[in-house]
């Protein structure tokens, strides 16, 4: 099951789940009145006995999933990012993370590309909320193919895992045989003037920026950091050492997410200038995805500006 044209990232998840349904009888799926939005209706149809409709009760859903995990199942709980990570924060913390329960939390509506539903439905905090939980693994696939692989890997992986899936159709960058391993960053471009570390659908922007800068003789290292936690520190530090400047890029607040994770590591081990491109600590709003991305500073242009700023600072530092 491999996609080649722009596809909602969540579709890769839904299809993988269907395959898991066949392969692994322990896989069960829960949803909170959002089965189609998160693409578990395919699984529900095929495996009704292993599908649990929990109604609009996300906290209870997460707790129930923890119980199913205690009972030996591999539950995937599904809803929007804000509802899983914020509304159900305590069950995720206590019954999943602290219990080290084998629960997979899969969400759509992370980020601002939600469309007209507006700020409350746009989770710009989910990665931060999950990252601060000890023992939580966080995977943010960059396209439907990677979502497909990540879902299969999640089912194999033992322990709590958060899977953030985009809603809108997204170009496909990765191939059937692109490597995917939880915790191992994927270097998509090998430049060493500057590194862009991105996750999720934003990886596309990084590739585009890289293309544009190459024509000016600037070579970007593009890193697809699909696993935000545990962070592939060696890839980050290699980038810091070899490139001397980093831009992070995510459809998430610049607080607490991938950007923070990168600044934590480099500040500790190898300080270099880092620009964080993301939502600048404000709530989102209704609009078309491209309008929102552009209003909130998540376009190639914004990224290029950040690259420019950080390169200038790298120069200052090198001259000093």
């Amino acid at each position: 099951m491999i996609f080649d044209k722009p596809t909602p990232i969540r579709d890769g998840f839904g299809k993988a789940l269907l395959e898991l349904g066949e392969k692994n009888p322990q896989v069960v799926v829960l949803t909170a009145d959002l089965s189609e939005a998160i693409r578990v209706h395919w699984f529900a149809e095929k495996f009704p006995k292993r599908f649990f409709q929990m109604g609009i009760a996300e906290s209870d859903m997460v707790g129930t999933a923890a119980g199913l995990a205690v009972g030996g199942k591999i539950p995937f709980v599904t809803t929007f990012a804000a509802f899983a990570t914020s509304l159900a924060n305590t069950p995720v913390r206590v019954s999943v993370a602290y219990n080290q329960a084998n629960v997979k939390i899969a969400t759509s509506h992370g980020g601002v590309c939600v469309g007209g539903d507006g700020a409350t439905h746009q989770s710009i905090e989910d990665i931060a909320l999950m990252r601060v939980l000890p023992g939580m693994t966080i995977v943010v696939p960059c396209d439907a193919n990677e979502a497909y692989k990540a879902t299969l890997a999640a089912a194999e992986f033992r322990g709590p895992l958060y899977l953030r899936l985009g809603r809108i159709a997204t170009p496909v960058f990765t191939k059937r045989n692109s490597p995917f391993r939880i915790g191992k960053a994927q270097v998509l471009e090998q430049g060493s003037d500057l590194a862009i570390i991105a996750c999720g659908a934003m990886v596309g922007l990084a590739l585009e920026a890289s293309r544009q800068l190459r024509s000016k003789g600037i070579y970007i290292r593009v890193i697809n950091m699909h696993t935000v936690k545990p962070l592939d520190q060696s890839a980050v530090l290699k980038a810091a050492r070899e490139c001397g400047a980093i831009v992070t890029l995510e459809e998430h607040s610049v607080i607490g997410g991938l950007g923070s994770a990168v600044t934590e590591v480099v500040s500790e081990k190898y300080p270099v200038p880092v620009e964080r491109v993301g939502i600048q600590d404000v709530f989102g709003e209704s609009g078309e995805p491209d309008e929102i991305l552009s209003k909130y500073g998540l376009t190639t242009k914004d990224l290029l500006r950040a690259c420019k700023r950080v390169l200038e600072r790298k120069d200052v530092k090198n001259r000093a």
Partner: protein
Amino acid sequence: MDSTVERKIDIDGIKDLATQIRRDVIRMIVGVGSGHPGGALGAAELFALLYGGVLHIDPKNLMDPHRDRFVLSNGHICAAFYSALSLAGFLPREELNTFRRINSRLQGHPARVKLPDLVETSSGPLGQGFSVANGIAMAMKLDGSRGRVYCLVGDGEMQEGQVWEAIMTAAHHKLANLTLIVSYNGLQIDGEVRTVKNLMPLREKFESFGWECVEADGHDVVSLYRAFTELSVMNKTDQDKPKAVIAHTVMGKGVPFMENKAVWHGSCPTPAQAEEALLSIGKSKGFEDYPPLSKQTLSRKKGGLK
């Protein structure tokens, strides 16, 4: 009996208002290409009655401490809310064109920061607004306000635990100045409420939580009004229960092809379907459709649309 009600509210006017709300809802949603028509259409009479006869709120005196308050907890049906606000003089009619668009005050779910005088609290995540309504009712009691708080929730929304916390709070704190309205259409996104997660018997639940509860036909203005007033013997010392009105509504009401179909919870009709819907709804007598704005105007006005 009907005649008593008629002396108090303009039944035909309210029905007519509901018709216009339905028209607005369809036009707003098809105009932007997304939204939640089903629940909004089903709440047309509720909004018409609230903003056309029940709520004591004056667009010209929005800070009156004795005004009534309205909280929309099931924020996704806000198309009907915005329409009612515009028809009642709280919002310019043309502004409905901006619904769910970038830079608009009319967010896809009501946002207090965008409309601080009209939206008591932001909603969207279900189960949030009701607690806020309780808090407003408490503040009003502290301040000796004669106003009343009306809060609307969906039936699916009642599956949220926080709703039951709020139910306990309202009863425990004797918020007799609060009316909770449940739009009971029996549907939610994934299908029938009783299949997704059964809520019945709802009235018994309210009663076992110490509420007064009546049921009404949510599309019959008289039945609804009676339900509201039967209960609004408010602020009497002998009467300290909060009041719940279970309004039996029909998702998509007024548009036959949408009626009782969960898929219309959050789907946008095609332009052809919208036309058919408007035909079924018919025209209102006392109101006009809000004027369309050209994309250029919108873009000039709001600076955001392409």
